[in-house]
């Protein structure tokens, strides 16, 4: 059998196994090693399994993943989201659609210390949704804002998805984190503008909240100084801000996790149960991510031996679509894949094949990391699957999927516009990393 036929059969087997709910990493590992074994031999293939597995799990650089996951778990268990929402609400809650704007701001603040889209969406479903409903916000709008706000978790540093992209493509994780800051802030601003436009276009649709005095506003700031300080310390150390110790990404994660733990314990918001649950959550998620990473590396050997990335590159460049045409095609593929699988699986499965195409076309790898994370994050909210939508539905029982998707539509349009802006102006993602 030719290598092309083996490669095609390999991909068919991979998708069949994944659709039969075999863990993505295990399916990739099994197909990768079976294919490699067929083409090269059983003994070297088996040798690769042991070596790759041990090398991956004992790579200090990869420690960035469990550490930022642990930080996110401590932050979530400490309930810091409530203070963030309360403070944002005090400042903008009185505006038309103000609670929606406050939710976006608080999601952004929470994402900056949590790093998980799903956790952000789940947390704000319990924190912001009841408040918005109490003031008469429509269900569709309230859930749509939370679903969209949740996606900020993958863009603002520390982002687990960006870290995984960095590991697979061997890019500087610190630079990737920093590259996500401006696009993340742009997302916050554009979501807020979207809410303001909705409020302006449909005056009776979004109510105004209760105004608060400046004394109350300033007083509420004291509740958020600790998470704010943690973010500045961790990301500032990563960026190399003056007067702060310089960290590697793994160190930033370790310091962030320890900092979140100390803030939670010292403020009395993190009890024994919270600590244990956080440790368990971080362990399970880290193990799940590492399983996929090991599988992806094993699958990578199969891709190399079948020369799949080179062939895909040749095929796409021969289409005559030009570099932006190929980029549009790739992004369309990601949007379609977003209907089938979650962001992490998509990145790990496709990046080893797509990345050589991108570098061949002359796109910046750091910029592409931001673009691709934005694209896969769209998959978290667009129909028919939308992981964030499922998470919100699992927390808020009395709302239908159709209602949530209806609420999300304006934010999907906003995201598409933001994507176009970032493609047109790569400097938005690349300016900060260029100063590191």
């Amino acid at each position, binding site marked *: 059998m030719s290598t092309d036929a083996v490669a095609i059969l390999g991909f068919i087997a991979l998708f069949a196994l994944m659709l039969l709910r075999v863990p993505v990493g295990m399916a990739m590992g099994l197909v990768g090693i079976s294919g490699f074994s067929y083409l090269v031999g059983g003994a070297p293939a088996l040798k690769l399994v*042991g070596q790759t597995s041990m090398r991956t799990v004992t790579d200090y650089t990869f420690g960035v993943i469990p550490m930022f996951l642990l930080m996110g778990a401590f932050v979530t268990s400490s309930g810091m989201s409530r203070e963030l929402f309360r403070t944002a609400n005090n400042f903008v809650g009185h505006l038309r659609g103000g609670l929606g704007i406050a939710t976006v701001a608080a999601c952004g603040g929470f994402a900056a210390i949590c790093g998980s889209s799903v956790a952000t969406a789940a947390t704000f479903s319990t924190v912001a949704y009841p408040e918005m409903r109490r003031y008469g916000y429509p269900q569709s709008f309230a859930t749509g804002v939370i679903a969209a706000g949740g996606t900020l978790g993958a863009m603002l540093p520390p982002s687990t998805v960006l870290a995984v992209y960095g590991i697979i493509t061997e890019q500087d994780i610190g630079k990737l984190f920093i590259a996500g800051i401006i696009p993340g802030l742009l997302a916050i601003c554009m979501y807020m503008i979207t809410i303001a436009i909705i409020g302006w276009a449909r005056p009776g649709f979004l109510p105004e909240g209760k105004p608060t005095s400046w004394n109350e506003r300033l007083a509420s700031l004291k509740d958020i100084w600790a998470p704010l300080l943690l973010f500045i310390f961790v990301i500032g150390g990563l960026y190399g801000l003056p007067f702060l110790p310089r960290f590697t990404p793994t160190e930033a994660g370790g310091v962030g996790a320890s900092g979140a733990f100390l803030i939670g314990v010292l403020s009395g918001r993190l009890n024994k149960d919270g600590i244990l649950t956080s440790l368990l959550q971080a362990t399970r998620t880290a193990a799940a991510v590492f399983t996929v990473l090991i599988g992806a590396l094993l699958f990578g050997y199969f891709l190399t031996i079948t020369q799949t990335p080179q062939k895909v590159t040749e095929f796409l460049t021969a289409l005559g679509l030009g570099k932006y045409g190929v980029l549009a095609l790739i992004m369309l593929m990601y949007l379609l894949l977003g209907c089938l699988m979650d962001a992490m699986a998509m990145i790990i499965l496709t990046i080893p094949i797509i990345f050589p195409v991108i570098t061949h076309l002359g796109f910046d790898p750091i910029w592409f990391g931001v673009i691709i994370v934005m694209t896969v994050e769209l998959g978290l909210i667009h129909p028919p699957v939308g992981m964030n939508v499922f998470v919100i539905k699992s927390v808020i029982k009395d709302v239908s999927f159709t209602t949530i998707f209806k609420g999300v539509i304006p934010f999907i349009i906003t995201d598409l516009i933001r994507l176009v802006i970032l493609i047109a102006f790569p400097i938005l993602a690349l300016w900060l990393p260029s100063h590191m």
Partner: protein
Amino acid sequence: MNRVYMDRFIDTIEWVAAFFVGIVAANIFLQVLLRNLFTYSIPDSYDFGRLMLGILIFWGIAATSYRGTHITVDLVWGNVGPRYQRMIDVFATLVLLFVVTVQTYTLFDKVMTTRSDNVLTFDLRLPTWPFFMLAWLGDVSAVLLIAVRTYRLIFHPDYMVDPAVGKEIKPVE
């Protein structure tokens, strides 16, 4: 084995992994603190960090495999009835069992090679193979737990809850 003992065994495996996550974070924090405040470096902090990372991940894989919290594509599973869902789960778990068994077998070879090559840590010149062995034991636990999961999925699906906290814990992402 009695269900209660089995659940305690599963919990213990999970706590081992969770303990090492905490230790890795504390190790990094201390290292950064001492380096910046006292320009002192903990000997082998880097090597200990990465070796403990290996231990936590393999023990974590054991727990994750048992709980079924791996990253999966649920498109088909979510659109079929409970009977087919169970069949899919059993099939997926059997594939998982096969893959992790092969991995465990090949990892043992890696542990033995590391031992015979006398690979040492950078500062304290300690042998690294005992750490690899501890990590490998996590993979052995994974094989055991996946076998238990398969048995329970087939004969006692009602046992598939999280005894550690009394309910299913969803991963962070």
